[in-house]
């Protein structure tokens, strides 16, 4: 049972750290998606960054960070624009517009992937579905062996290539973890800096326009940031499970507290617990780590749903006799009349 935490500690550490960073970044931005009732737009974007990635790869013949982010940004913004276009310019409702847009873009992505030879960069159907968080430490090994990487390492003061070859792996994190850490940091920074703007546009569009906040700019910035987070999470958890990382932490937090700052705290705690628990579960059951992380997160959500002090199921069952006529009873009675 304790196997992952005793053997291969370095490997496990990087995987859990990656999982935590992914879930934390997604969870923080996911809070705003939940508040703005755009959870399913998040779902749509998480599907449709796939063609952006595939096209970026086909054009550049490698998956460097910058073209990848640009591809994802374009795809993400395009998704939002297409959804708006379909739903404003025709009588198709927003839900159908979301469904049509993301399925079309995702289908294009899958076909591009099966045409192009992308196995070399782990861009294949398996990765789309499961993510390859278990390969994060492998990334490290490649860094170690690649001569280019070594020469780069030589230039960093205080480091030399021998440190790697001696197996001192903890000193340098794998590049994907660094990238994810940067993205998570930027997300946190943006949320701190634009806290007021995000808060006001999420809750009160009238007030935001009277304060002179351009809610369109805020909206598209949020969508752009979302695409970047999704694409950097893509490698770890795939295209479809990202939606869980976006919604589960925020939904759990919203069951427990009602103010935004503590919600962010719970989001981060949820991220840490689900990453650790998920990796443990994955080692134990020998299944996909990304899937297991989401299962762990769902279990946390189920616990919150059961035991939440304000709206938990347990309180509903026990507290029913105490509140003589709570709101819902009144509503039900009113409906019966």
């Amino acid at each position, binding site marked *: 049972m304790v196997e992952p935490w005793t053997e291969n500690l370095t490997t496990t550490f990087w995987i859990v750290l990656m999982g935590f960073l992914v879930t934390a970044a997604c969870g923080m931005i996911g809070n705003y998606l939940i508040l703005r009732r755009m959870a399913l737009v998040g779902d749509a974007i998480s599907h449709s960054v796939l063609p952006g990635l595939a096209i970026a790869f086909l054009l550049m013949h490698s998956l460097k960070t910058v073209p990848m982010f640009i591809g994802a940004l374009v795809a993400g913004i395009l998704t939002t624009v297409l959804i708006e276009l379909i739903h404003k310019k025709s009588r*198709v*409702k927003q839900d159908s517009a979301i469904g049509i847009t993301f399925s079309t873009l*995702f289908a294009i992505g*899958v076909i591009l992937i099966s045409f192009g030879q992308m196995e070399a960069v782990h861009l294949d*159907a398996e990765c789309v579905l499961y993510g390859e968080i278990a390969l994060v430490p492998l990334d490290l090994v490649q860094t170690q062996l690649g001569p280019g990487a070594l020469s780069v390492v030589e230039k960093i003061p205080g480091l030399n290539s021998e440190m790697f070859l001696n197996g001192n792996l903890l000193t340098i994190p794998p590049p994907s973890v660094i990238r994810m850490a940067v993205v998570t940091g930027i997300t946190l920074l943006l949320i701190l800096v634009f806290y007021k703007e995000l808060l006001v546009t999420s809750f009160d569009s009238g007030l935001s326009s009277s304060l002179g906040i351009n809610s369109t700019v805020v909206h598209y910035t949020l969508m752009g940031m979302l695409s970047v987070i999704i694409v950097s999470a893509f490698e770890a958890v795939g295209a*479809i499970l990202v939606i869980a990382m976006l919604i589960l932490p925020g939904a759990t937090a919203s069951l427990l507290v009602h103010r935004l700052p503590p919600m962010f705290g719970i989001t981060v705690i949820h991220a840490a617990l689900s990453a650790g628990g998920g990796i443990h579960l994955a080692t134990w059951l*020998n299944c996909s780590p990304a899937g297991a992380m989401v299962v762990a997160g769902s279990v946390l959500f189920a616990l919150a749903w059961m035991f939440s002090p304000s709206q938990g199921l347990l309180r509903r069952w026990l507290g029913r006799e105490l509140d003589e006529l709570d709101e819902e009873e009144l509503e039900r009675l009113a409906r019966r009349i």
Partner: protein
Amino acid sequence: MITRRQTLDKQGWRAVHALGLLAVFVVLPESAWSAKIGDVAEETSLGQQAIRFFSFRDPSVRYAVIGSVMLGISCGLLGCFIVVRKMALVGDTLSHAVLPGVALGFLFSGVSASGLFDWSFDVANITKNPSLIFCGAVVAGVAGTFLVNTLKQTTKIKEDSALGLTLASFFAVGICLLTMIQDLPTGNKSGIDKFMFGQAAAIGEDDIRLMTGVTFLIVAVVFVFYKELLVTSFDAGFARSIALPSQWIHHGLMLLVAFAVVIALQAVGVVLVSAMLITPAAAAYLLTDRMHRMLLLAVGFGVASGVLGAFISFLKPNIPTGPCMVLGASAVFAVAFFAGPRYGVMTRWWRHVSRSKRVQRENTLKAMFQVLERRDAQPEESVSLKELAERRRETLDEVSGQAQALKQHGLVTLHEEGNKILFTPSGWQLACTIVRNHRLWELYLTNEANIAADHVHDDAEQIEHVLGDDVVRELERMLDDTTRDPHGRAIPGFADIHKPFTPAVPGPSGYGGSS
């Protein structure tokens, strides 16, 4: 009401019988299982392959096509109700939520029961049993919708978050189970990985039986309960007032959607099956206002894109079928979105442009009429470009462009290098009609609606272009005296419109040339 119901039932059973006969003829005589679609595609040219595919010589092609047709029918029918009830994303959630059921159904085939409590699980027995997978997937899908409803009822979580949450949790459980299955030491895992993106070639004979049966069930239920589904979809208040059990109808519909999703899984895959529900139906929704036509169109689009997907997967076996089908459906939607006859974006834009051009032409003709009227001249006489520009308060260039447009439509002729404009008989008639419309409407507003004479011009300016013949006849009937408008000008009558007309080429010193 009763007779309508009976005719509906009759129609329904007729359709069911027809489909049943079709399927019996196609499916049953052929029970041999040959190679997968991909293996038969050894001919090289596209044409040869197309002939081979559409001659249905190979049983695997036949299975793939029948399967695609069945999924097109069932998804198209139910997708219409999903789209008009604004439940598209419920369909998406449901289609992701079936995944753990698929995996469990697959695992359950390894369980053999020798007694009531004496069950044993043997990995080696695991096979792809369509009925078990079907049952597991339906149970998981229904559990997913149940979870969404419970979340919405017991917490403050909004619908979109509840949907996303359910989708992701169920899908993650499914992913875990699938990755566990892939590590099991069993010989027969084939097919289970095709449930993700779909492979029409993986459809076997057992699948076809199941798909056909379920499609019949769906078609039959939709026909029998068509009225109930229609009423609850469009008018919930009316449905309640005639005591329809809306909740039960909703649950029944969700169950049917789960059926449709599950039979489509094999060909389209878990990830994209919701598109086969939404996209053909949304395309049909853009093309018609009648539900029965929408159902037929959606079924047609679904079947067409399904068969297209199967054909592409026949040509290129390494491309998953699901995305091809979805792109086919999306292409249909795009055409309907841009070029649909009534609601298409391009069509509406084109209609707008041509209408404003027509209005401008008519306004120019009216201005010519007024110039001649002020001069008290005959319709055969010419109007100079300058006069027209003064009347319209526009530049000479603009007016000359309008004159060119009128000439192209055969309403005027141009003389003296485009400086003199003459009515053609049809142009004169149109000008008279517009002026008559304008003045009749002014007269109507002052006489019948008691609006002051100086307030009626703007309104008439708008309506003169859209008054039809029957409205004009109605106005003529209502108004006693239609010879003079409220401002005292003559309203052109029948005699003016059909004046004998001999257009004359104006001499060098024509009217108003350089005054």
